[in-house]
C-alpha cells in the first residue's frame, strides 16, 4: 500500500514539475524615473502579464531618477536593472559604456511606430537602434501669461522683455545652464555637437568667419541679460517666481507645466521659443529636444523577456496610458494623434518648437564649461574680459580631449 502511495506521489510530483516547466518563472527588475510613475508602471505590468500569459512573470519595480540613471548603471552594469528609463542626454554615456542592448528583434516595428526625432535620439553613431522611445516631451519651450502678452508679443524676445519691463515683471531664462544656453548659439547658426567617438565635442562658438560671429551672439546675450525685464531663473527660481507673480513668462519644460497652469489659470499658455535680435537680425532660438528612452541591460539574465517588456512598456497603449495618468507627451505617432494630446498647451508648444530643436548629442565636457559662460553673461562680464577670449576659453573647455 505504502509503495503504491509513494509511486502515486512521485508521479504527481513529476507531473507538477513538468507543468511548471511549461509556464516558466521569469524575474525582471524595472526602473522608472519617479515615484509618481509607480501607478502607471503597475498598470503596464498587469497589461503585460495579460498579454504574455505563457510565462510566469515576477516584475520588481524600482525608482531611479532618469537624469542620474547613467551614473548608477555605469557604476556596475551587471548589477543594474534589466529594463531602465533614462533621459536621452545620457544615451551616449550609456552606449559607450556598453550598457545598452541594441534593439535586435523588432527595430523596424519600433522605428515605424515612433516619431523620427525620437528614433534619432535612440540611434547610435553606428546607425543601430539602442533604445525604445517612451516620451517626446523632455525639451523646453516658452510658458507665458496671457494677461500680459498677446500672441503677437511672444513672437520676439525683444517684445516680451519690453512688455515685462513695462509691467515691472520678468521673463525667466536659465542662462547659467548649458542645456538652455545652447539655444542662443545654435539659433544664430553656430554649432556644438559630440564627435564620432561619442565622448569629445566639436564647437565653433568662437567663430569669426560665420554670418553671425560668436562675439555678436555674446554681445546680444549681455544686452538681454542686462534688460530690466530679464531674470536668470532655473527650475526652482522659475517656480518661485511664477508662484509669487514676479515671473510672467519663462523657458522651462513640461515638468513645470502644472505649476504654471495652477498659478495663471485660464491665462496659462505655452508656445515655441521666440526670436531674438543678434547683429541687427531676428533669429529663431533653437533648443534641445528631449526624450525619455527605455534601455535594456545587455547583461540581463532574461534578455528576451526584458526586450519584450521594453517593447510593451513603450507601445501605443502604454504611451496613451502614460499621457492619461502622468500628462507626459507620447513619442508614438498614433498616440500623438489623439485630440486630448494635441489640446495640451505644453505638448502643442513642444511640437511647434520641434522644427528648431536638435537631438541632444553632447559630450560630458560641455556642461560645466557652458554653464560658466552663462554665469559670466548673467553677471554682465564684470571683469570686462575680451569677449573673443571668453569664447576661446569656452571652446577650449568644450572640445577638451577625452584624456582629461
Amino acid at each position, binding site marked *: 500500500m505504502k509503495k503504491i502511495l509513494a509511486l502515486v506521489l512521485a508521479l504527481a510530483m513529476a507531473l507538477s514539475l513538468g507543468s511548471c516547466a511549461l509556464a516558466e518563472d521569469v524575474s525582471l527588475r524595472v526602473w522608472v524615473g519617479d515615484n509618481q510613475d509607480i501607478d502607471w508602471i503597475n498598470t503596464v505590468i498587469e497589461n503585460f502579464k495579460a498579454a504574455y500569459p505563457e510565462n510566469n512573470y515576477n516584475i520588481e519595480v524600482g525608482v531611479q531618477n532618469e537624469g542620474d540613471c547613467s551614473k548608477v548603471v*555605469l557604476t556596475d552594469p551587471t548589477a543594474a536593472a534589466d529594463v531602465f528609463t533614462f533621459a536621452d542626454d545620457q544615451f551616449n554615456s550609456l552606449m559607450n559604456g*556598453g550598457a545598452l*542592448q541594441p534593439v535586435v528583434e523588432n527595430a523596424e516595428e519600433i522605428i515605424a511606430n515612433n516619431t523620427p526625432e525620437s528614433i534619432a535620439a535612440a540611434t547610435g553613431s553606428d546607425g543601430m537602434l539602442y533604445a525604445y522611445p517612451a516620451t517626446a516631451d523632455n525639451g523646453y519651450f516658452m510658458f507665458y501669461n496671457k494677461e500680459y502678452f498677446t500672441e503677437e508679443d511672444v513672437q520676439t524676445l525683444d517684445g516680451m522683455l519690453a512688455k515685462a519691463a513695462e509691467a515691472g515683471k520678468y521673463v525667466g531664462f536659465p542662462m547659467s545652464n548649458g542645456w538652455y544656453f545652447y539655444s542662443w548659439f545654435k539659433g544664430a547658426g553656430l554649432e556644438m555637437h559630440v564627435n564620432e567617438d561619442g565622448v569629445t565635442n566639436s564647437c565653433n562658438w568662437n567663430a569669426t568667419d560665420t554670418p553671425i560671429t560668436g562675439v555678436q551672439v555674446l554681445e546680444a546675450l549681455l544686452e538681454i541679460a542686462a534688460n530690466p525685464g530679464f531674470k536668470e531663473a532655473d527650475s*526652482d527660481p522659475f517656480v518661485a517666481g511664477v508662484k509669487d507673480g514676479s515671473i510672467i513668462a519663462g523657458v522651462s519644460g513640461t515638468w513645470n507645466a502644472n505649476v504654471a497652469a495652477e498659478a495663471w489659470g485660464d491665462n496659462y499658455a505655452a508656445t515655441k521659443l521666440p526670436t531674438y535680435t543678434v547683429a541687427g537680425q531676428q533669429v529663431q532660438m533653437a533648443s534641445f529636444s528631449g526624450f525619455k528612452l527605455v534601455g535594456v541591460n545587455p*547583461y540581463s539574465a532574461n534578455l528576451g523577456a526584458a526586450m519584450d517588456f521594453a517593447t510593451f512598456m513603450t507601445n501605443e497603449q502604454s504611451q496613451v496610458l502614460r499621457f492619461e495618468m502622468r500628462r507626459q507627451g507620447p513619442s508614438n505617432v498614433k498616440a500623438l494623434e489623439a485630440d486630448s494630446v494635441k489640446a495640451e498647451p505644453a505638448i502643442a508648444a513642444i511640437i511647434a518648437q520641434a522644427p528648431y530643436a536638435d537631438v541632444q548629442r553632447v559630450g560630458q565636457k560641455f556642461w560645466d564649461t557652458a554653464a*560658466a559662460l552663462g554665469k559670466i553673461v548673467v553677471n554682465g562680464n564684470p571683469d570686462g574680459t575680451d569677449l573673443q577670449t571668453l569664447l576661446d576659453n569656452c571652446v*577650449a*573647455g568644450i572640445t577638451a580631449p577625452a584624456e582629461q
Partner: protein
Amino acid sequence: MERSKAIKQAAVPAKRPGLVRFFASIGQYIAGVCRDFMEGDLWVKLSALLWGSSCAARGQYVKGALLTVLEAVLAYFIPVVFWPYMSKLNTLGTVQQQRVYNPDTRQNEFNDYDNSFLIMLFGVIGCVLLLIAVVLWLRNIRAARAVEVRAKEGKHVNSFREDLTDCFGVKFHRTLLTLPVLGVACFTIIPLIVMILIAFTNYDRNHLVPAKLFTWVGMGNFELLFNMTADSTFAYAFGRVLAWTMIWAVLATFTCYFGGILLAMFINNKKTRGKKFWRTCFMVAIAVPQFVSLLLVRNFFADAGIVNTLCKNAGLTDWLYSIGAIPTANYIPFLTHPAWARPMIILINIWVGVPYQMLIATGILMNIPNELLESARIDGANAWQSFKSITMPYILFITGPSLVNSIVGNINNFNVIYLLSKDVYTTSDQLMANANANEVDLLVTWLYRLTQDQSNYKMASVIGILVFIVCAILTLLAFNRMIKGDKEENFQ
C-alpha cells in the same frame, strides 16, 4: 618628567636610518631561517615542504594538522583562484569584451573577456595573500626548529590544549588583535592599495569596465595635474582648490574653536543664569542631523529663498546694488557668487560646528585647577589676563591634538561644502569649469564630483593621494611641534 627624560635617552642610540634598519632586520630574519633549516633535523627540513610535520613529529598532532591544512588552502587558492588575475596585473587584461546576440536562446553570448578592475582587485588580494604565505612559511620553519630544540633539550612541549589556553592567557593580546587586524587588512588596506594603483591607470569614462579595458599609464595623470598645458586646466584648478581648502580648513577650525571656547566661558560664567537652558539651546543644533539643517539653510539663502525676499522687501538688496556689492539688483548671491558664498559657508559652518566645541570646552573649563585662577585673582590679575595666561594655555595644551585633528577633518569636510553648493553654485571661472571644479570646492568635493558625475576615477585617485599627503604633512608638523614640548610641567 623623570620618565620622559629616560625615554629620550633610550631613544638616542638610533643611528642608522629607519629604512636601512628595516631591511637589515629582514635580512637577519631570513638568515636565521636559513640557519634553522640547515641545523634542523629531517623533520624540520620536511616541514619546509609540508608545514607542521616537525610539530607532528614532536607530538603536536592537531597543530601540525592545522598548519598542513592552512598550507593546502593557500596552495590551492593562490595558484588556482588568484593566479589567473595576478598573471595579468602587468597589462590589466588584453581581451576586450565581445558580445553576440543568440536569437535562439534570446540571450547575449560573451567571449571570455578580461575585466581590468577585477584583475586589479583580485590581483592585489592574491599578492597580499602570497606575501602572507611567504611570511607564514618562514615563521613555520623557525617554529619547527624551535620545537625540535625544546624537545631535544627535554623541555616541555605544549599540547594543543595548552596552546589554546595560552591564547586566553599570556598571548591574549594576540587573540584580541586578530579581528581588528583582519578587518583593517580586508576593508582598509586592500581597497586602499587598489585606489592608489588606479591613479597610475587610465580608468575614466572612456575605459569603463566591463565593456572596455583600462591599463597602466605610469605618472601620466600626475603630469596632467601639475603641467599647465594649453588644453588642460587641471593644474590651474588644483592650485585654486588647494588654496581655498587650506584657507577654509584654518578659518573653519579656528572660528569654531574660539567661538566654542568663548561660548562655553560665557555660559560657565558665575553671573550667567539658566546655564542648562542656554546649553540645551545650543545642543539642539547638534540634535538635528547635519544634512537636514544644511539643506534647509541652503534653501533659506537661495537666490529665490526667504532671506533674499526679506532683504529685497527691506531695501537691503537695492542698497547693496547701489554701492556695487552685488552684480544684479534682483537678489543677493549668498551662495552663488564666490565673494559672498565663501564667507557665508564659513559663517554657516560656525553655526553648525560651535556647539561641539562648546561641549568640549565646557568639560575642560571645569577641570582647570581653581587654585590657579584664585591665586591669579589675589595677585591682581583681571579677567582678560587670567584668560590669556591661564585658561587659554590650559585649553590649548589639552585640546592641541584634537585641534590638529579638526583641521584635518575640515580639509575633508565634505558635508558642509557639498550640501551648501550642490545644484546651486555655478562657477564663472572658465578655466575652473573646464576642469569641473568651482571656487567653493574642497579637494574632497571636487574628487567626489569627478568620480560621480564624470566617472574620472584616475584623476580622483590622484587628488585623493595628494589630499592624503597634505593631511599627513600637516599632522606630522603639528604633532611634532605641539606635543614634543615638555609643557606638562607648566601645569604641575
